[in-house]
Structure formats: C-alpha cells, structure tokens
C-alpha cells in the first residue's frame, strides 16, 4: 500500500484538506493522500483575496489530467492570501503539498472553529479506511 505523509501538527477535513493554524490565520491545502489520488495536477482555480469562504462550501477547483474536483473550505472566514504561484506551477501540489503547494490563507471568523477539525491520528484512520479496497 502507498505511504501517505500526514504531519502531526496539522488539522484535517474529511474532504482531504489540511489546515495549519497560526493564531487567527489558517493556511489551507490538500493532503498527500489527495494529491496522490488525483495524480498530476494541471490547474488550480482559487478565490480572490478579500472574498468570503464558508465552511463546507466550495472555494475553488483543482484539476488533474483526468478529473475536476471541488476544494471545500475547512473553516469560515475571509481569504487574506492566495498562492499565486500555483497558476504557473500547479505541479507544486504534487511535489510539495504541505509547503509550496499551499492554496489559500483565511482569517478566521470564529477562532475556535479549527478545534472541530480532525487531528492527524483521526485523519490517518480516515485515509486507511478508504485505501483498503
């Protein structure tokens, strides 16, 4: 079975996004499991800085060679930064999903909201359940 990197210090969603919490600002991307499942990423569509995102609602789109997938906001808030490099280098999502492949930064509406996200151990369980077929 494939190996998936799941850093302990991050929070996760059931939709395979990761969240790095730094005070009232969180950074968001897709997990190693997600990028491996998707395959070569060729296009990432992100919202504009200043737009509002709502937890559980799509905030963007990620496209691999074969498929289009929605990106779901892990928390609610305002987009304060987007990774503009992904326009020219969508492959960063494959090469460095927790680093250069980050997608957006959000200013939290509710500082306690990330507490409801999965920790690394629970997310690992979620991944393993789906990779047992």
């Amino acid at each position, binding site marked *: 079975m494939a190996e998936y990197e799941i850093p302990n210090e991050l929070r996760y969603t059931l939709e395979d996004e990761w969240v790095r919490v730094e005070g009232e600002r969180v950074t968001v991307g897709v997990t190693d499991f997600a990028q491996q499942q998707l395959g070569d990423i060729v296009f990432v569509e992100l919202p504009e800085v200043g737009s509002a995102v709502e937890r559980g609602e799509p905030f963007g789109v990620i496209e691999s060679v*074969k498929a289009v997938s929605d990106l779901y906001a892990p928390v609610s808030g305002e987009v304060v930064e987007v990774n503009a490099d992904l326009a020219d280098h969508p492959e960063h999502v494959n090469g460095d999903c927790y680093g250069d492949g980050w997608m957006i930064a959000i200013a939290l509406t509710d500082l306690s909201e990330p507490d409801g996200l999965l920790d690394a151990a629970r997310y690992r369980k979620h991944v393993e359940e789906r990779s047992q077929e």
Partner: protein
Amino acid sequence: MSALRRTPLYQLHQKLGARSVPFAGFEMPVQYTSILEEHAAVRRAAGLFDVSHMGQIHLSGPGAVASGEWLVSCPVASLRPGRVRYGLLCNEAGGVVDDVTVYRLAADALFLCVNASNVEKDYRWIVRHAREGARVEDRSERCGLLALQGPASAAVLARVSAFPGPAMKRFAFAEGPVAGAHALVSRTGYTGSDGFEIYLEAGCLEPVWNALLDAGRPLGLLPCGLGARDTLRLEAALPLYGHELDDTTSPLEAGLDRFVKAGGFLGAEAIARRQAAGRARALAGFVLDERGVARAGYAIRHGGRDVGTVTSGAPSPTLGKSIGLGYVPPALAAPGTRVEIAIRERAVAASIVTTPFVKS
C-alpha cells in the same frame, strides 16, 4: 450491477503500482506513476499498454470478405492478407455502430479489432448483417492485446524477437514468435506515435509483458495506463467511441471521409443522403488561449451563444496547453476561428486549429 472483469495482467499491474478504474466493464490501469510521465515516455521513447479489454471478432468462410465489405465503411475486398485498415461499422441511419480496424488474415478470413465497450453490440450487429457463408466468432475472451508505442518501439521489439523487424510497414501485420510466444503483430496504434500492437493468447500475456518491460526499461520504456492513452490519442486527434463517435454521428461529420468508400456498404445511402442535405456540424480541434481545461460536455460558444459541445478535452503534455475536440457548425470549423469554451462560470478563449494537434 455485474462485477468488473479483469485482464490476465491485473495482479501484475497492481504490483507495478497501478491505479485502476472501471472502463468498459473492465477494471483497467489508468496510470502507474504519472499520466504526464507516461505520456512523455511514449513521445520520447516507448510505452507498454495492456489493452486486452479490446475485442476481436473473426469472420471466416466463403462469405467472410463479402461480409466485411458490406459491414465496414473502408474497402475490405481490396485489402491484401497481411494488411490492416481503419473503418466504421455504420447503421442504416448512417450513424456509427463502432470504429474498428480490419485485419485481412487470408483470402477467406479476417478479423475486426473493436472497442471493449461495444463487443457485444458489434457481435450481434455483425451476426445479423453478415452475408451468407460467413462464420462469425467473438474471440475477445481468449485474445490478449499489448500496445507497444513510441519511437523506440521497434528497437524494444527487436530485443525480444527477431520478428517482425523494423522493416514492417505501417498498417501491415505478420505472425511469429515474440518473447517465445506466438503473436500477431501489426504496426498500428492509438497514440499518434510509431508502434506495434501485439495480439497474443490470453495465457501468454504475462511472459511477453515482462519481457517487453525488461527489454524496454533501459531504453526509457514505461508501463502506461489508459490516462496516457487518452491524452496521446487526443493529441493525435484520433476519435474515441462514445465521445467523438456514437450511433447517431455521421462519419463525415467526424471528418473521417477518407475511411468511407463511395458506396456498397451498410449505411452508405444514409450517409450520402445526410451529406447531400449539408453537414449539420463538423468535428473541430481547438486550443485554449487561456489557462484551464476543457472537458467533455462543456459548451462551445461563439458570438455570445452556445454553438456546440466539447467531446474530448485535456491538457496536452506535448504542447503545454489545453486542447480539445468538439462539434460546431461547419461555418465555424475553419482553423483560426475564435470561440469560447464555457468552463464553469467562465468563458475561456479558444482557437480552432488544424488537427492532429501533435504530428509525429
């Protein structure tokens, strides 16, 4: 729901790290490592595909060739033994039942290589419309098929077999041993690059696959899945049944005129009638002028209104931009025409171009 079928190489594919997806009733590898890497391997060196899901329908007996001539849009009676032609099986309305390659085995024998999704439909169609004296046999179950594609294909094949040799012409075939197994090898393919298709008894697939992989790796060969097969065929603007072609499409609308003979085949009259009435639409290739990926089903727009539909679209790894095929009114099919593709809520600029997108 019926269970998915697997080719005899399924376990090997899994060991190679393949991600498998359902395709035409089979569980097939879509990629091993990366569609982009596999695509590049075929354009630069070679790729090996298991396409054993495809079907083979044999016709034999005194009525075999007459049946082929009647059933397929390309000339079959004039096809010499050892040669292959591409053609269409058409219905009475001039639509496409399937697109096939016809292999002339002998004076009174030939076989059609058909799409996996259409094997049963084609078999019933052929049995129903074959001429007197033709025996029709579906050998899909026991026939395996490997596609060895890319500029290094001939060199790879030469490493495992003295046969058939680099002298084999395009659209020719011959029978002989490949890595110790009896094979029928044709210089054909579905990638737009040079290459061979190797028909084997299903039980012989594994040793031949392994031998070709071992011989080819040092030359840059990679095992390739259906993902790369799709981007490769799209760069070559080769139609895919169910996308560019279906039971209602005229082969002439699809731009396949050169595979349609003047008459004397099932569907010819309807095709001529539709042609005389003027083509309603034409298949055109386009390149996106902006970022994004056009996908099958997206609208093609011109002058603020929908004028057609994308049938296939993908990023072209060779060109570094997105390409696609779609049906538009004939007046808008000329290269240079500016259109837009409706990608979600955006209208993305695109230009009609001549196909193939990538020449090899």
